[in-house]
């Protein structure tokens, strides 16, 4: 049996209905544990004081914001190449989650910036490119909303997602060229090969990251189901109109 079978909406609904209880439970558990641990039982950093506690929100949200866009890119490609509806609808479902994550990263970053850098906002490359990512999400969602025909909307938003990704990467380099920043480098091990935070901060952070990832998955599955049902309502209505 191939993975593509789940591109059938009914199959997909069945699978996601079976998966979702576990996903929601795991996501709730990890997010709660990660955040509670981080908030209540970690020491303050000697330099940053209690503001390190923001990291348990900031980093997972930032990570998921980027991953959500990446997921949309992949599902858009699948839609354009193989025209599986679930794929397009999953991209549509992920966008609002992604934009919320972006917003959380921006807001927590801004709040963090005030004590650390003495300013809410600086035109640092990483911050700036996040802002641009936010704009891309906005445009993507607005385009989905503006087009009536669902297939055309899926096509157009997919192309926008592809072109937007290229330009988002371009912007990232342009912004780097334009201004050197204040922001920390990454400390996620896969990115640097070793990590720079102490274990006391790292474990709750890791749990929180996993939790945000699971929460993202659960939300996207649920929202995709919603989109499928809306599409089905629409199709049924169109049929009944055609029969009349």
């Amino acid at each position: 049996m191939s993975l593509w079978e789940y591109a059938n909406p009914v199959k997909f609904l069945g699978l996601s209905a079976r998966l979702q209880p576990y996903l929601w439970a795991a996501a709730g558990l990890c997010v709660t544990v990660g955040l509670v641990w981080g908030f209540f039982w970690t020491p303050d950093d000697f330099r940053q004081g209690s503001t390190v506690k923001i990291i348990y929100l900031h980093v997972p949200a930032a990570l998921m914001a980027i991953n959500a866009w990446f997921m949309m890119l992949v599902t858009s490609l699948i839609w354009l190449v193989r025209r599986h509806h679930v794929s397009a609808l999953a991209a549509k479902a992920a966008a609002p989650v992604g934009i919320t994550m972006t917003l959380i990263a921006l807001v927590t970053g801004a709040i963090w910036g005030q004590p650390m850098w003495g300013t809410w906002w600086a035109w640092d490359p990483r911050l700036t490119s996040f802002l641009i990512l936010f704009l891309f999400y906005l445009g993507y969602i607005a385009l989905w909303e503006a087009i009536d025909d669902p297939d055309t909307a899926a096509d157009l938003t997919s192309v926008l997602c592809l072109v937007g990704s290229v330009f988002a990467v371009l912007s990232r380099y342009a912004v780097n060229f334009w201004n050197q920043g204040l922001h920390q480098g990454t400390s996620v091990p896969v990115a640097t090969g070793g990590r720079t935070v102490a274990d006391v901060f790292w474990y709750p952070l890791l749990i929180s990251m996993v939790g945000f990832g699971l929460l993202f998955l659960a939300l996207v599955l649920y929202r995709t189901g919603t989109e499928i049902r809306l599409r089905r309502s629409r199709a049924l209505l169109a049929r009944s109109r055609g029969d009349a």
Partner: protein
Amino acid sequence: MIALLRRDLMLAFRAGGGFGLGLAFFLIVTVLVPFSVGPQSDLLSTIAPGVLWLGALLACLLSLDRLLALDFEDGTLDLLATAPLPLEAALSIKALSHWLTTGLPLVIAAPVLGVMLNLAPAGFIWVIASLALGTPALSVIGTFGAALTVGIKRGGLLMSLLVLPLYVPTLIFGAEAARRGAIGLDGTTPLILLAGITLGTIALMPFASAAVLRMTLR
């Protein structure tokens, strides 16, 4: 009256109705400013009040072309002109709904964008006050411009051209009040003048707009 207002607001919130697009444009313009003038925070904080005013003005301007043109194309304006509601009242309502869906969100968003532009803390209250007092004038004057160009296909750019000069006094007083406030001076005088302009345009412009619209519908 209430019916017209409610319908316009409802349409703005429905899919494709354009609510929030003005806001998004405002956001984008403000974001592009640092890219174009550079990221130095002191420079940004000097020009912040002006940029916020200019951005709000452009966002208002760009959302004007849906104010009347859609109603013209589907015949609603013809029918409204023959309805018992005076055209002056109808246009005032349209200006009000434009302000509610465009101007008001801009006023509310301005502080956030002010943060991004390093606006001096003393300036926030002045920027908000001047925008809150000034944007209604932008909507009312804009309605006049929209009425002038309603029959012209894709008249957007032409309308900008007609309306922008009319926006100059509002912009001058509004930006002046915001600027003075931001450097710690007292901006009351320009603010009062701005309020005067707003009241004057609200009282008089609808008559000009209605007169112009009657001519275009003819």
